[in-house]
């Protein structure tokens, strides 16, 4: 599922962007999306997500490189001719027009006849279940309703590509979850290619076909959500997506699919080498809290184990969250399912922990 090659609908090729001529905000961006894909750009603030979106929409020009839409370079096509639907973070609904006028605006500028316009506006409003709100002004709508109108407006002229820049940022959690569902449903039903920007990782993981994790102007990893979570390519992605335990050490031996890492505290563990290639290299070993095993019976024979001391035990309903001191790190977290056979630990208890070698990834440091 790499989406490269001729099938690419949207393609960034070696794109760079600088605003001030001194620093690159986007550094060497390569990305290709097949038609119909829902791709999310995820990354910390200032990592260049909006900039990428704006370059695609035509409001910023790439300093270097090419952006292609459906095989054609769009570097020199003005925004209004790109036919890209866009949902802005603050919705950007025109306050002086009613909802229906807002929706019919893109149709009017496309010189679509009045009757067609009305039909399309009605269809778009129904699509987002806002059929009765045509005569209201945006200011008379709630945040979620405005959001839906913005979505309907971006879709009403049937664009093949829709860009959304943190469209749910202003909504409360419940509404946000509802809208996440609604947006993905619409995007899939209509077969639209979507580029979605967020810095909420849950949103990214639940909605997308693929997620592009941005940092420092580069895509750190581009992968489907499950792969991103379970097989992070580097320590930034491992840290950024989900909760993560890291242990620092040095590679001692690499043999194919496994490697041995000597932790700074002296213990030896087995890990899966991801981006370490040489013996003696420093590494950051990453284990997901829910992949840490405290029940030794479940571990394979010969698995490496570590001694740990319980520092904190938090009951969270569905799970237990235990903070441990492991190999000199005090922020090692283990999550265990709340099951009848699961012991409730007390601070000060000493236990042993272990994991499967493939869950423990040796990454760059």
């Amino acid at each position: 599922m790499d989406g490269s090659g001729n099938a690419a609908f949207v393609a960034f090729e070696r794109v760079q962007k600088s605003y001030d001529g001194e620093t690159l905000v986007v550094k060497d961006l390569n990305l290709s999306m097949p038609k119909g894909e829902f791709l999310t750009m995820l990354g910390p603030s200032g990592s260049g997500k909006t900039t990428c979106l704006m370059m695609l929409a035509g409001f910023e020009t790439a300093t270097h490189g090419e952006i292609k839409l459906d095989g054609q370079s769009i570097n020199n096509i003005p925004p209004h001719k790109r036919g890209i639907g866009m949902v802005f973070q603050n919705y950007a609904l025109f306050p002086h027009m009613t909802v229906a006028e807002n929706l019919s605006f893109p149709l009017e500028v496309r010189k679509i006849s009045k009757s067609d316009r009305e039909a399309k506006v009605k269809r778009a409003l129904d699509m987002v279940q806002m059929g009765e709100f045509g005569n209201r002004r945006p200011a008379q709508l709630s945040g979620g309703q405005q959001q839906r109108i913005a979505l309907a407006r971006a879709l009403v002229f049937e664009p093949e590509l829709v860009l959304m820049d943190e469209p749910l940022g202003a909504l409360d959690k419940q509404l946000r979850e509802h809208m996440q569902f609604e947006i993905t449903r619409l995007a899939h039903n209509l077969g639209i290619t979507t580029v979605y920007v967020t810095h909420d990782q849950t949103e990214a993981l639940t909605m997308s076909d693929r997620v592009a994790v941005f940092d420092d102007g580069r895509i750190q990893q581009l992968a489907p959500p499950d792969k991103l979570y379970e097989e992070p390519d580097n320590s930034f992605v491992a840290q950024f997506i989900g909760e993560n335990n890291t242990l620092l050490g040095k590679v001692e031996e690499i043999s194919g699919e496994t490697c041995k890492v000597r932790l700074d505290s002296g213990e030896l563990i087995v890990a899966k080498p991801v981006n370490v290639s040489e013996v003696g290299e420093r590494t950051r070993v990453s284990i997901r809290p829910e992949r840490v095993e405290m029940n030794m019976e479940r571990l394979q024979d010969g698995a490496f184990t570590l001694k740990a001391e319980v520092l904190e035990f938090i009951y969270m309903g569905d799970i237990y969250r235990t903070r441990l001191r492991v190999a000199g790190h005090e922020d090692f977290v283990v999550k265990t399912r709340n099951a009848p056979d699961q012991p409730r630990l007390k601070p000060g208890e000493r236990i042993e922990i272990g994991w499967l070698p493939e869950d423990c990834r040796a990454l760059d440091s």
Partner: protein
Amino acid sequence: MSDQTASGRPESPQSPVAALPGGEVTERDQDGPMLAADGRPLKSSLARALRREKLRALALIAPLLVFIFISFVLPIADMLFRSVQNDIVADTLPRTVVALANDPLEEEGVPSESTFAQFYTDLYIAEEYKEHTRLGSRLNYEMSGISSLFRGTGRAVGRFDTDIYADQFEAADPAFEDPAAWADWMADDDIRAALPLTTDAYDAWAGIAVELDEDNPAEEDPEDIVYTSLYRDLANGAAPPAPFPQVDVSGFESVSIRELFIEEDEDWADPEVWETIRAYSSRYTSGYFLNAADMQTTPEGVELRPENERVYMTLFVRTLWMSLVITFSCILLAYPISFLLATLPARHANLLMILVLLPFWTSLLVRTSAWKVLLQNEGVINDILVWIGIVSDTNRLALINNATGTIIAMTHILLPFMILPLYSVMKTIPPSYMRAARSLGAKDWTAFWRVWFPLSVPGIGAGSILVFIMSIGYYITPEIVGGTRGVFISNRIAYHISTSLNWGLAAALGTILLVVVLALYWVYDRLVGIDNVKLG
């Protein structure tokens, strides 16, 4: 808890009770209003609490409010009040006003002898107090020539041949020669009641003696007005009781005061003079307003002045029209500038802003005078146009001392007042609207015209109101560059305030201007809606 509260309110023992966390209790009668903890209706409790807050807030600003009221509202109200105030005739000629009101003016519109006699008394007193000239100039606004009539007759009135009465009375009874006797008589209520005209004249004369000459009336011979009045009282059949000397005046030689006046100046026989005095004798007048609206009172009623005399109407129309033109030129010039201000990067925008604000740091007079230099016949602009060859040397443009000059200079001076509100409104339009419009397929111009422009209209509204209202009352610039054809109504008001001293007319013009502005404001509110105006 419930029992406790219920027992406190025996009239509704079963009222449901809700306890508030603070231990206070709110209850509601079965179907009565919500009650507060002390049993009063919640609504009135709330109103009381709010009122206390409001009063406290009011007390905080009270000193300022009083200051504004005294230094701002009162003077304006006083000034506006002058437009209908007309005390001077009633104050200066009180007796004449009463007499005129009862005088049928049978003899070709000229008052009767008795009215003239009252007028004689009035004018005599006014002359002593030197008030007849003020009255004359006031009435001169309504009828030219009255001023000199009053001045001239005022000088002569002391020399009227009424001294024959004094001589005849003194000859009839020597008691009249004694000022002290006069003082005694005039202290006697019965005598006063019997001789109303005499009493009135004597009191006025005594007042003059005390106030102006610092004399004791009991030591001075009464003036002719007193004897004239006495003659008229007695001729009317008055019978003053003793100790007033019994004098029979039927044999006295008499003079007609009416004739004396007409002899002095035949204009006193002009019915128009008396019509004017009568018309302006009430304490309130619509005269100033009629005048300000280019109307006049004629015997047939109120009518417009002849076309060539309609000064104020022309000025009002010109003021409104030119203010409109100035407002529109301000919009035209300010819009692009504000657009640049709002959209340029901060560094350039700040520079531009300084240029916009620069005029505020320069004196208004300097700026206006600079326009004189630029616009005059041999001025910079004409020179450049001639040099380029657009106009010939013999045919230089008349850019100053006319409406053009006023419009150019005022547009420049009022421009910042259009730019600032426009800018602050434009600044609040998020750039994402334009982007949204373009991403939806609108060309730059369409996006601007359909999205950006409508959102900036409230700024135009605010700026227009500001500029229009300021320009309608502008004075200094039209005065300097407007010549005669480019002056505004305010220049006329200023003229009446400081030169012709016709404050009543100035106040009437000002009131009309105020009403026009308020009416326009109302129309504007109706058409555009004042809610659609914002200053940012």
